[in-house]
């Protein structure tokens, strides 16, 4: 207990400092949201491995570091920024440094469709009625310590709102850069709120990267609301440094006949925990939760998903694929809740892991809670190595051993990669995979 108090004290002090600085400019309701989130965090403390939800992931390496709230950092030069912008991006790109919107670095062509895309702080100041009904209403602030911590430090972030019927053709890219300094571990709490009103349609990529080496913690929360018949295709690409910690929540709230897919791609970070939660709160909704992780060395990657079928006639599809090398550790926990009301639910969950080394480890766990009787729920998990028969077959036609392994590894990732509907993202992911394959295996 004493440890817990010491671990959280540091955050209480940072909170007080932030409140002292921002108190006068932020609306009272927001201060209340922050205050109650801080109380939740102090009450919950950091989770331990005795907590069932955190059984395979110890956050002790995060809890024991005295992180300082990342201050406004120097803007990266254009060459640095170019590493994270895919060369040419057809649509809006918004850049956030330590969670704070940077107008200078962002590119937002005049939107004629009624779309709002920009700073969350600006939105709650100028148009609170579009923010207040949603912000911190979906993420589980009272039960999830990291979501609570993020919310206690809400001071800016990304806000994307599509009014009724608004269709955005080009994808929106939200770039979150976390600054790191070797001597001074920093934490930032990026926040995203997406509201797609009825019949709206948009494709959004969030990408996370580190500015420089050094220990840092990115504690991100995204709330995404898809109202009736809205269509949202969402991607989260995490490619932070190998010293970075990343804890993230993507919380989806879906109305009637809404169609949302979210793809969670984890390449970087030393300790990564992703929560992706979907609540299907209207009839006929369709949720797709896909994920991909490519880890090596001592990376630890934990994907926890939860799909809550609250209403009838909804479907959900889930495909998580991971490639693990070195001493990497992967965790997948896929919870599916089918409420008594949610008849005719159709849900499918798959987790497949490819292990390239002797020492990589995976824990995978489907968790189905079904309270309705007329439903279809399937789940399956595999953990395996490259197939020896396939390798021999390729070699017997003249392909060398390394190339055969690469070809089969790429083929494993293929059915995730080919589903990505943003061309520059797909190309970048293929490049990352090829680069990782070319590095060779650590243990050989």
């Amino acid at each position, binding site marked *: 207990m004493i440890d817990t108090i010491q671990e959280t004290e540091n955050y209480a002090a940072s909170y007080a400092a932030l409140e002292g600085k921002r108190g006068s400019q932020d609306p009272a309701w927001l201060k209340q949201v922050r205050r109650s989130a801080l109380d939740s965090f102090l009450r919950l403390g950091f989770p331990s491995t005795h907590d069932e939800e955190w059984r395979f992931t110890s956050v002790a390496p995060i809890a024991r570091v005295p992180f300082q709230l990342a201050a406004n950092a120097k803007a990266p030069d254009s060459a640095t920024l170019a590493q994270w912008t895919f060369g040419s991006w057809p649509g809006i790109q918004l850049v956030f440094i330590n969670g704070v919107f940077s107008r200078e670095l962002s590119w937002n062509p005049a939107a004629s469709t009624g779309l709002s895309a920009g700073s969350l702080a600006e939105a709650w100041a100028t148009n609170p009625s579009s923010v207040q009904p949603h912000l911190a209403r979906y993420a589980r602030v009272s039960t999830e310590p990291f979501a609570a911590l993020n919310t206690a430090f809400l001071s800016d972030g990304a806000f994307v709102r599509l009014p009724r019927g608004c269709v955005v053709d080009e994808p929106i890219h939200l770039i979150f850069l976390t600054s790191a300094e070797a001597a001074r571990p920093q934490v930032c709490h990026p926040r995203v709120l997406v509201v797609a009103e009825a019949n709206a349609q948009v494709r959004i990529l969030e990408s996370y990267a580190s500015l420089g080496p050094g220990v840092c913690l990115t504690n991100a929360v995204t709330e995404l609301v898809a109202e009736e018949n809205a269509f949202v295709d969402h991607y989260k690409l995490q490619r932070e440094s190998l010293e970075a910690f990343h804890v993230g929540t993507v919380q989806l709230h879906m109305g009637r006949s809404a169609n949302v897919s979210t793809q969670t791609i984890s390449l970087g970070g030393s300790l990564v925990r992703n929560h992706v939660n979907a609540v299907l709160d209207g009839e006929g909704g369709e949720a797709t939760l896909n994920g991909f992780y490519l880890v090596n060395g001592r990376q630890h990657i934990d994907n926890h998903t939860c799909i809550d079928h609250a209403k009838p006639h909804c479907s959900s599809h889930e495909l998580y694929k991971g490639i693990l090398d070195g001493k990497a550790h992967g965790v997948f926990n896929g919870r599916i809740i089918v409420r008594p009301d949610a008849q005719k639910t159709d849900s499918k969950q798959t987790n497949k892991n490819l292990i390239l080394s002797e020492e990589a480890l995976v824990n995978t766990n489907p968790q189905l809670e079904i309270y309705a009787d007329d439903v279809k729920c399937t789940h399956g998990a595999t953990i395996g190595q490259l197939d020896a028969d396939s390798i021999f*077959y390729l070699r*017997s*036609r003249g*392909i*060398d051993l390394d190339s055969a392994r690469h070809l089969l590894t790429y*083929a*494993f990732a293929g*059915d995730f990669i080919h589903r990505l509907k943003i061309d520059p993202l797909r190309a970048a992911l293929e490049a990352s995979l090829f680069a990782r394959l070319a590095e060779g295996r650590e243990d050989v």
Partner: protein
Amino acid sequence: MLEIKNLHAGIGGKKILQGIDLKVNAGEVHAIMGPNGSGKSTLSQVLAGRETYVVTEGQVLYQGGDLLEMAPEERAREGIFMAFQYPVEIPGVNNTYFLKAALNAIRKHRGEPELDAMDFLKLVRSKVKLMEMDEGLINRSVNEGFSGGEKKRNEIFHMAVLDPRLAILDETDSGLDIDALKSVAKGVNALRSPQRAMIVITHYQRLLNYIVPDFVHVLSGGKIVKSGGKELALDLEAKGYGWLEEAV
């Protein structure tokens, strides 16, 4: 081209081949027949370089070199091709892409220029026609969802593209209906040449009506118990394997 001398081999401590001697020259087609468990597949796997099989005694010379010292891909690049009894399904690996990579690895080894996409496509088209194959299959994942006949046809199609010096057909006829058998045999016959040798391993004489061998060998108990001309296959058809096993 190929000389097998007193070859002993097994898998997992079990001895299967117990002293095989066989000589194959360019231009010849040898059929190896035998009952189940006689060692037919072990022989083909050992020749292709499958590492799970262990050679305990004997020697295999291929074009004068020690075949057993070579990795599977080196054997392929030196011109050995095995058509698998059970071709492997490889989801996510495109049949054409794979074949192009294989062919270019072989060409590179031979000191020939690699084929570009256009020339490769031209080559593939001509071989697809030769094999009477459904062109759709070449753009699918390797063998994935193929029928038994399509898989075997795809093996011979690979062989046609890779143009080997020594082809080993491991029970290519098993499980094929007569139409599929005829068309696979037609493909194989089109590839017969004075420069190329073939070893046709089969359980059934039927295949040899369509691929007529120069020599027939009967494998039993891990040894070649009888060798002869194509008429030996007909004797086997009439009398079965029993009389040979008794004779041993």
